[in-house]
């Protein structure tokens, strides 16, 4: 299709204009993060990378990031293993109640945290489990498993049955076929799932907020929320802290952007 010169100029203008709208908040928080934290610092020039170190220490982000890493490790590894197992059953076997069970899992993709958080808190408090890793991680494992089962089922359904049949003729068990053939073959699908689950877990806010009332088990986004409460004035340190909290997922995004966008799209279009 031929496009006139004016039209092309207009297209680039739209592209640039829209990119600027996306970038303005991102650049402005970066600029603030590197800016002077107070009047005294302002006298020493305009560039202050030391804000990150100060925010890290004063906001205790070392501790919160550690918690976040732990939660993400538990949620992602558990959810991935459980999703592969259940997705395998839904994708390659047929059994009584299959459809009903699958719809039950599908339901979990739509249920918002708001609908389960209230009884979860009061019931887990009764068992003395609030302020623990499990209270923060397990509800997120449940949410991720709902998505993961759905996602892995689609992958297993796409595998040619002849591959499995060949392995079966060679005497491989169902578990053996899964571990030695299907999982290695499914690396792209599994990687996308891992990346999405990591992003959701790292960015989750409501569950860690409610499940750790004492703040003893605080993840990085929560740390940022409370840091905001303390620093009503010092925007530079707050901005630096915000950049630190966003960084792990943003770095992963730029490294894996193909998977990330594809993952979001595939998950979306199949939904």
């Amino acid at each position, binding site marked *: 299709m031929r496009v006139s010169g004016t039209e092309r100029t207009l297209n680039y203008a739209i592209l640039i204009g829209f990119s600027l709208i996306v970038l303005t908040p991102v650049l402005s928080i970066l600029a603030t993060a590197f800016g002077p934290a107070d009047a005294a610092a302002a006298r020493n020039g305009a560039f202050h990378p030391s804000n990150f170190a100060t925010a890290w220490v004063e906001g205790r982000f070392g501790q919160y990031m550690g918690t976040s890493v732990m939660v993400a490790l538990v949620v992602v590894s558990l959810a991935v293993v459980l999703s592969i197992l259940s997705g395998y059953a839904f994708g390659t076997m047929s059994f009584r109640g299959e459809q009903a069970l699958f719809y039950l899992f599908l339901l979990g993709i739509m249920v918002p945290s708001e609908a389960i958080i209230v009884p979860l808190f009061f019931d887990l408090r009764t068992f003395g489990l609030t302020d623990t890793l499990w209270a923060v991680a397990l509800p997120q494992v449940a949410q991720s498993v709902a998505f993961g089962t759905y996602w892995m089922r689609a992958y297993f359904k796409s595998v040619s049955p002849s591959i499995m049949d060949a392995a079966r003729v060679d005497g491989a068990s169902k578990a053996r076929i899964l571990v030695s053939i299907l999982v290695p073959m499914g690396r792209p699908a599994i990687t996308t799932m891992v990346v999405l689950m990591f992003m959701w877990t790292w960015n989750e806010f*409501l569950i860690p907020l409610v499940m750790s009332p004492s703040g003893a088990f605080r993840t990085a986004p929560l740390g940022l929320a409370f840091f905001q409460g303390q620093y009503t004035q010092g925007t530079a340190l707050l901005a630096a802290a915000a950049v630190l909290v966003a960084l792990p997922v943003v770095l992963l995004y730029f490294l894996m952007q193909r998977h990330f966008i594809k993952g979001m799209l595939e998950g979306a279009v199949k939904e």
Partner: protein
Amino acid sequence: MPASPKASDTTGGPGTRSARHGRTITPYLFIAPALAVYTAFMLYPLARSVHLSLFEWDGLSLATFVGVGNYTDILADERLRAAFGHAAAFIFFYALLPCGIGLVLAAVLTRAKVRALPLFRVLVFLPQVIAMVVVSVAWKQIYAPDGLLNSGLRSIGLEALTRSWLGDYAFALPAVGLVGSWVSTGLVTVLLLAGMAKIPTELFEAARLDGAGAIREFFAIIVPAVRAEVTVALTLTIVASLKTFDLIYMTTSGGPGSSTTVPSYEVYRRAFETGQVGSAAAIGVTLTVIIFLITLAVNRISERGA
């Protein structure tokens, strides 16, 4: 959902049929661990929410059974009515506005063969991966009395328009809503670009030969072709809009007054700050039902139109 459990059977070899027909418990063993966690931390709490919503309870003392009282309160309580009204406004900001912008933007970019498209896609999707807490901090700075927005207005001589955006009764809701638009528009655009990339070029050329202009082309070719993508985009963004919690918690706490409160924030406030646990559960359940109904409706409408 095209769930066809029997599909795999027909392709299996003759010797595998009985194994696949599930006399064995094998499939259940594979599902059991996932189902256990899912039941304990999703289905059971959901059922408990429904149960709790029938009681008046402060989280400490004995609960009183009130039947559907908490649900009728949603209609009667002005603050709650407002919260659901704001949720409707958020659907506009998170879903409808981005879909409108995304359609036009993606259409323009599809018609033109611009080189920077992959880079652009990566860029506009970026807000989707940044934690909402961080997005909130960034936008709060922009909306601050001495923030970027007000300095911008001052620099072009519109001093009269400057205000404390998030503290203003009339402007706080649209201000917060536009943050949602900022987050959603990239996702919607990327989705629609993917959909439009699948339209065969000959269709555009044929339309050109018939003398169709850009606008005719947009409504006659592009919009019908991406119906499925629009459905998905609307579903995802509407659900996201109804789940908005961190943005409100971080920027306005529902204020000033109750001018920006939303159902999800009321769930949190009532259950953990004001001791109205039953009411909180009822709001959570109502929110879930609304999400279901809207998802269903959006998908039905798009199917009927197709």
